């Protein structure tokens, strides 16, 4: 019983810490996105709140807290309230299997404890994919329950888009799974130790997964409803898509879920294709006791690089049309992903590690 309570306390504090960091990152990202976009468009971005505008997320959060919560007439109240939760929970729950530091096991009063991953389950990749697919429900139900045609159209678009691009995310990962021989994110990271030439995106033998990475990136931009794939919320066509009718904290939930999903996808790219916590060159990794410092540093650096990439893509590319989106997903990405699986498995059979 004592062991169980210690384990529970450790796990709960770990979950608290990870959630804290993720939500803090979400707050930082709301400002960072506006700043990065501004710099790319030769503007200053938010400058009023605090020095250089750094307190803008606090102001935004307060504003959303005190806004009136409106439920539109004719809306289905239960579904309308349930939808934001159904979007946010799957976005946050995926972080449970992300390893963000070295795979150490320490002994706390007789209980084995992994400090840098909440739960190392043997189907980590599938776990994340499963919950990512649940996020679609919130979007569809939110669109349907709002009793508004813009919302409904946004929800329908998003359903079609998520189903189409989920497949590409899954298939892009298969190559990595073939090379790592495991579905556990910890083991996948361990398989990429020792410099950037061992990362799956670049590893020349048997086959670099760079194409798979590009497919994964494109499909995950679509899955997170970001530009250029933000058709479910296309401002110029659907006002704001599936969350047109939402206000106050319910709207904030959708907003936070989008950013949390971005972070999750960046973490996944880092772990699956770019070596997770491993340093790009062996001598950049601190030895022994302090390996966790560099581990967390490199992990964070890579995740922020991908987040920057998201902003960069948003600032660069125009939105796709609906039929272009579908054609691109099914007729371009899917065949390339399948081809990558065939080539990878054949080469992995000929040149086993």
């Amino acid at each position, binding site marked *: 019983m004592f062991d169980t309570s210690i384990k529970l306390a450790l796990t709960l504090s770990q979950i608290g810490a990870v959630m804290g960091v993720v939500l803090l990152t979400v707050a930082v990202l709301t400002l960072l996105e506006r700043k990065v976009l501004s710099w790319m468009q030769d503007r200053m971005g938010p400058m009023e709140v605090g020095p250089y505008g750094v307190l803008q997320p606090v102001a935004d959060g307060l504003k959303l807290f005190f806004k009136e919560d409106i439920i539109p007439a004719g809306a*289905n109240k239960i*579904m309308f309230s349930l939808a934001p939760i159904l979007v946010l929970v799957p976005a946050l729950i995926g972080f449970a299997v992300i390893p963000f530091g070295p795979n150490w096991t320490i002994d706390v009063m007789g209980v084995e404890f992994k400090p840098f991953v909440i739960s190392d*389950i*043997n*189907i980590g990749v*599938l*776990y994340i*994919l*499963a*919950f*990512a*697919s*649940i996020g*679609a*429900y919130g979007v*569809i*139900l939110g669109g*349907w329950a709002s009793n508004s045609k813009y919302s*409904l159209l946004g*929800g*329908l678009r998003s*359903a*079609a888009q*998520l*189903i189409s691009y*989920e497949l590409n995310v*899954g298939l892009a990962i298969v190559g990595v799974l073939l090379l790592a021989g*495991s*579905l556990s994110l910890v083991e996948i990271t361990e398989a990429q130790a020792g410099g950037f030439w061992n990362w799956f995106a670049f590893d020349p033998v048997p086959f670099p997964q760079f194409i798979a990475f590009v497919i994964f990136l494109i499909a995950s931009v679509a899955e997170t409803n970001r530009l250029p794939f933000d058709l479910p919320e296309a401002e110029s066509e659907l006002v704001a898509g599936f969350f047109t009718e939402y206000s106050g904290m319910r709207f904030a939930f959708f907003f936070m879920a989008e950013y949390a999903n971005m972070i999750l996808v960046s973490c996944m790219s880092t772990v699956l294709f770019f070596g997770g916590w491993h340093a790009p060159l062996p001598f950049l990794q601190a030895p022994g006791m302090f390996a966790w410092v560099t581990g967390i540093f490199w992990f964070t650096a890579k995740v922020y690089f991908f987040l920057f990439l998201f902003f960069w893509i948003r600032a660069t590319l125009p939105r796709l049309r609906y039929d272009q989106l579908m054609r691109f997903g099914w007729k371009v990405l899917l065949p390339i992903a399948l081809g990558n699986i065939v080539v990878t498995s054949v080469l992995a059979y000929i040149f086993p590690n």
Partner: protein
Amino acid sequence: MATFVFLYFAAVIVMAASLVVLVRNPIYSALSLLVMFFHVAGLYVTLHAEFLAAIQIIVYAGAILVLYLFVVMLLNVKREEQFNRQGPVALFLGVVLLTEAVLLTVSRGFTVGAPEPGREGAAVGNTESIGEVLYSTYLFPFEIASLILLVAMIGAVILSKKGIMESK
């Protein structure tokens, strides 16, 4: 503890499954199906079949049910226009299945409890064991399943591309 968890999952599965057919609103129906899928997945986890649990959610909850919802919303079914005319057939099948279940329970002796987890599951990762069994013992059924899927794919292409079969 295991029995308690099993009873919880079993009770919710039965209740959610009944709600799927009893609720009038098709959207609520689909949502109770979602709840049921999740609890079936939970049952798989208690049996150490994590791979099946994840696949259950990805395939059924993540893909098939989303398509159901998609269609239900597009059709926008009104309350009066429901297709509830299979009553007699459903009653007949239900009675037959119920008799079967009762007979089986009586003949085996009535016990409540979680079924035993599979033997291989705990030792090796069950993803590996599923892979090995699928490509050795069950290779033939696997090939047949893939053939059927190929036929279905070709069928879908022919149905959606009208005029593809006509010679020019």
